[in-house]
């Protein structure tokens, strides 16, 4: 088992996990294009699921990447500029991946509600996924430049990027967060609000699946799921600002890694809630079957766990 508080172990994880977003996005896009060619709706749905799952998988990739950066600090023979350039490219790719995953989720939700995703959603996923594949490839290429001496000097090696996205670098975000005293408290407040909104949606949905509030059908309450995603969106943005603003508070903090692990599992659980046939069939008045109850209980336990580790960040592991 990797030691989550050990930077070298996290760096190792990064080298393992980074293949997922790079290859996974290409796979997802391939499936989507195949779906168009074959006019196969089921393939479209599968491609959306792939995009959502790969988006989930990208979170630990980014997190472990920052840890890997810290592990390499001061190491001779490794260019910190190359690492920073790769990290900035990766951040951009990560953000686009998250947006693509969200659009894909919306499509999956629409499959449930109206039998098919809207043209707008499908177009959005297509365009976004193409951009994401390109950004992932760029980030991956720059990652290779860090420690593969055999490719340096070749024509595919990335030079210093003077991107139009020069404003979106980890360094500039960190400066922004640390220089303005209102940023951190405001982000914390928004983080609490996003969490409350998310948990509210999870409560009403899962309490119904546990057998309370039988007056509503699951289909009725399924309608609220996008609100949960919006709550998560707030927390994703504010969470990124925390993480980029003060990574040293998180990369070696065991509580933070557990929080992310539980968050990933909660994300998987949420996908099941969105597309699961069983729960969808539950009418008003009906007692839910055991499978629904287990799904619901795990959703609630996982999200309380995420809150727990989040609140415990300053107390468990190394104190701030």
């Amino acid at each position: 088992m990797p030691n989550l508080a050990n930077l070298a172990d996290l760096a190792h994880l990064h080298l393992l996990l980074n293949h997922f977003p790079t290859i996974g996005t290409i796979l997802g896009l391939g499936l989507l294009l195949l779906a168009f060619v074959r006019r196969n709706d089921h393939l479209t749905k599968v491609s959306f699921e792939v995009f959502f799952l790969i988006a989930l998988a990208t979170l630990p990739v980014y997190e472990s990447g920052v840890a890997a950066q810290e592990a390499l600090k001061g190491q001779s023979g490794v260019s910190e500029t190359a690492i920073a350039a790769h990290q900035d490219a990766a951040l951009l790719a990560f953000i686009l991946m998250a947006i693509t995953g969200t659009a894909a989720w919306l499509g999956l939700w629409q499959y449930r509600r109206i039998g098919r995703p809207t043209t707008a959603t499908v177009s959005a996923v297509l365009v976004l996924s193409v951009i994401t594949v390109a950004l992932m490839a760029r980030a991956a290429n720059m990652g290779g430049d860090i420690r593969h001496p055999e490719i340096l000097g070749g024509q595919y090696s990335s030079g210093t990027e003077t991107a139009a996205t020069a404003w979106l670098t980890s360094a500039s975000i960190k400066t922004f967060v640390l220089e303005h005293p209102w940023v951190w408290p405001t982000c914390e407040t928004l983080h609490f609000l996003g969490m409350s909104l998310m948990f509210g949606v999870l409560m009403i949905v899962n309490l119904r699946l546990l057998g309370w509030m039988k007056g509503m059908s699951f289909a009725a309450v399924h309608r609220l799921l996008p609100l949960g995603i919006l709550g998560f969106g707030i927390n994703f943005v504010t969470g990124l600002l925390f993480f980029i603003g003060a990574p040293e508070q998180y990369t070696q903090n065991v509580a933070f890694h557990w929080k992310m692990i539980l968050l990933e599992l909660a994300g998987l659980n949420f996908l099941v809630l969105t597309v699961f046939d069983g729960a969808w069939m539950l009418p008003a008045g009906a007692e839910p079957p055991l499978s629904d109850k287990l799904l619901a209980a795990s959703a609630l336990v996982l999200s309380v766990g995420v809150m727990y580790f989040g609140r415990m960040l300053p107390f468990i592991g190394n104190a701030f």
Partner: protein
Amino acid sequence: MLASLEGIAFSMWLLGSNSIWAYPTVLTLHTFGMMVLAGAAAMIDLRLLGFGRGIPLGSMNTLFSVIWGGLALNAVTGTMLFVADATKRGTSVIFLVKMLLIAVGVVTIVMIRRDLNRGNGEPVAVSGTAKLLAITSLLAWSAAITAGRLLAYVA
């Protein structure tokens, strides 16, 4: 008087103890209570504002119980947190503002409950009053949470 509250054994233990069961646990329970209370209130408010229109208005009663449960938990944990830091909290404007906002939030929830229960049987339509109450509730609880977070930054 506030200083003497800080001096009692409980306060000393809560802030002084290195145990994870002291301040960290009370704080986490307080956060849990907030999340549960605000989350449930938000669901009721959002339903009244038209989201999830397939949900029958009379079917959300469990959420009201959840709100009262969260409120009770936070009254207890909140008192503990106050007592341990009484001289600072007791003279804080932001703390007073937070308490007032919570009072507004509670009153609005009670009024919403009454509005949903008026007449006999299942409530059918959402009245204009209920919509206003829903917006007030959302704003009051959001503001209370904001004030609570700012306690760590402002006197």
